């Protein structure tokens, strides 16, 4: 009898409840293949992710698919966003506006507010904009985020060339013609990679109208020439 149980226990795919292997949480895919391959399948489900880059180059649109993979009534907290957040645009990035709250406070207290929000265990996704976060503060948030099952995304302005933080994922994004160029500064469990091109397009543009107008204006010229 005992030997049968030990046979079962020895099987590599079977484990007891209190031995749940860590690091088995799933990755949330961003939907952009080049990026997903490089970051082990996607963003970590819980933990801190830092994205350094300018505002308005598509940072939230990059996370569009990640947001769809959170639970139904997930609660989003935006701490110190760069401007007044508009609900009509939140639907574009698959965030339900009714579940969103915004906290605006000074930069010193924003970290405290973020930690409180994570520890309350009521927040699924926390988006924090701050000028600068050092390794110790990031570590604190990381420990709290993993313990209370929260995804924390920290947006930092681009010119902070600081050291990589002890977090699962640390990215730098820059805008290029085709979309975004992502450099991985740190990836837990993988190698950092540079120059990943992600074709993010999130605003309407005039290319269609321009091409049509060009086409029809050429035809108009032809007609005019040929009378």
């Amino acid at each position, binding site marked *: 009898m005992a030997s049968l149980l030990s046979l079962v226990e020895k099987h590599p795919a079977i484990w007891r409840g209190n031995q749940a292997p860590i690091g088995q949480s799933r990755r949330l895919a961003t939907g952009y293949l080049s990026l997903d391959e490089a970051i082990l399948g996607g963003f970590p489900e819980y933990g801190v992710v830092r994205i350094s880059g300018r505002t308005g180059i598509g940072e939230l649109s990059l996370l569009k698919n990640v947001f769809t993979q959170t639970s139904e009534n997930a609660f989003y907290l935006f701490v110190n966003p*760069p401007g007044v*957040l508009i*609900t009509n*645009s939140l639907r574009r990035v698959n965030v339900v506006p009714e579940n969103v709250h915004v906290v*605006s406070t000074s930069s010193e207290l924003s970290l405290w*507010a973020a930690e409180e929000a994570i520890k*309350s265990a*009521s927040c699924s996704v926390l988006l924090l904009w701050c000028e600068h976060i050092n390794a110790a503060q990031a570590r604190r948030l990381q420990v709290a985020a993993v313990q209370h099952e929260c995804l924390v995304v920290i947006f930092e302005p681009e010119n902070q060339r600081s050291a990589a933080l002890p977090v699962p994922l640390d990215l730098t994004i820059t805008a290029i013609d085709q979309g975004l160029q992502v450099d991985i500064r740190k990836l837990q469990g993988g190698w950092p990679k540079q120059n990943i091109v992600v074709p993010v397009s999130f*605003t*309407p543009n005039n290319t269609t109208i321009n091409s049509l107008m060009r086409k029809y204006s050429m035809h108009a010229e032809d007609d005019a020439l040929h009378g």
Partner: protein
Amino acid sequence: MARQRWLCLHFFRLTLDNAKANGSVPDQQPAVAYHQASNNVLQVNSCARKVGIEVGMGLAHAAALCENLTVIDYAEEIEHSQLRLLAASLYQCAAEISLQPPCRLFIRIDNLVRYYGDYQQIWLAIKNTLHHREVNFVFACGWSPENAEALAKRGQSSFLLCDKKIENILAALPVQALSIADKHANALHRAGIRHAGELLKLPPTELGKRFDSELLKYLFALRGESQPQRLFYHPPSNFSHSVLLSYEVEDATRLQRYLDQCLRDMELFLRLRNAGSQAISITLYFREAPEMPISVRKSDVRFSYSEWRQLIKLKLETLELPAPVTHFEFSSEKPQSYAADTADFFNSRKHLFARQLLFGRLAARLGEDAISVPHTLQDHRFTSGVESESDNTQDNLEEFTPTYLLKHPQPLTDSPKIEFGPVRIESGWWDENKEKRDYFIGRNQHGQRIQIFRENGNWFLNGWYA
């Protein structure tokens, strides 16, 4: 005629006991309660008594006898409020409580026998309640409040039920121990009446000829033959407590200890009424600065000691005091009884509850207006400041709506490349904020997508797309 029974509780050291509970009097140290106006030491604790300080001494005399004497200021209102607190806690055992400020309580106990069984049980219940409060008192039992009071004034506690014994002790009391006006006491002394027994033997008609009706009423009450009307204690509908600090507090966080005690009292108050409160107001009084009201709010009604304590702690941490605090007032606002329909508390409320707790905590530290919801554009004007009365959902312009809007549009400094546009919006002719703008999406040299518009030939930056 069935005789009533009253219990008199005389708290002879109420101010000092309260100060000890607050922590203002260190253990095993002599302390006195000093009344400044009459220059009298009114209350003396046991350590001070050992050194030789007595009630009625002046402050200089007391200080000469003892070097490290702790002096607590005696204030009648504070002692009265302490007495009311005691009555509130005793109200849980007995219904008919009459207060005699500043430090005496009368409880009618003969009608409680029906509930408790016998006097022993009543006495144990009362004693237990008072034990939690840690107050010193002298008690006596008599036929009427005046009777019990006279017995308690002897200084010895007694719980006598035998009528004969009460009569004997009463008879042996000196006339000074009774609560009669001084002139009457002097007149009786001159007449040769030394003891209460002799006084009670005198025929009332003769007494009535020489003294006024007040004395007669008192004597009748003393004998237990009449019961003058008494005002009984009614618990207040709102919790309010004022605390006099024994030394001025300069640092706001030091107030936490006193506020914790007030919270405990409030917890008892609310629990007895099955109510909760969403806001607490604390008013701080300074010696020379105007009073400062503080309000602490919570998002849900249910009382939680640890939660309130944390909210108050957060509030105190960010508080700046203009001057040292001398005393403060603590009151709860509008206790609301718990409605029965919040009974399904456990189904799927956990996250909502946690969210409300979080908001309460954030609001306490950061202020009420730190927390907001995203702004919804009501009509086609891309302005965050405009409160519109229309309710248009912008289905066709959703692609074009920026993610972040500036509070006020700023003049455009660099020259972005236009990617999309123009979208001409002419709107707002029905209210003050009429606008006619051409909106574009621009892309600057860093790749940021910004919303810019042209109004009257000038270019402005309105927001960003993320």
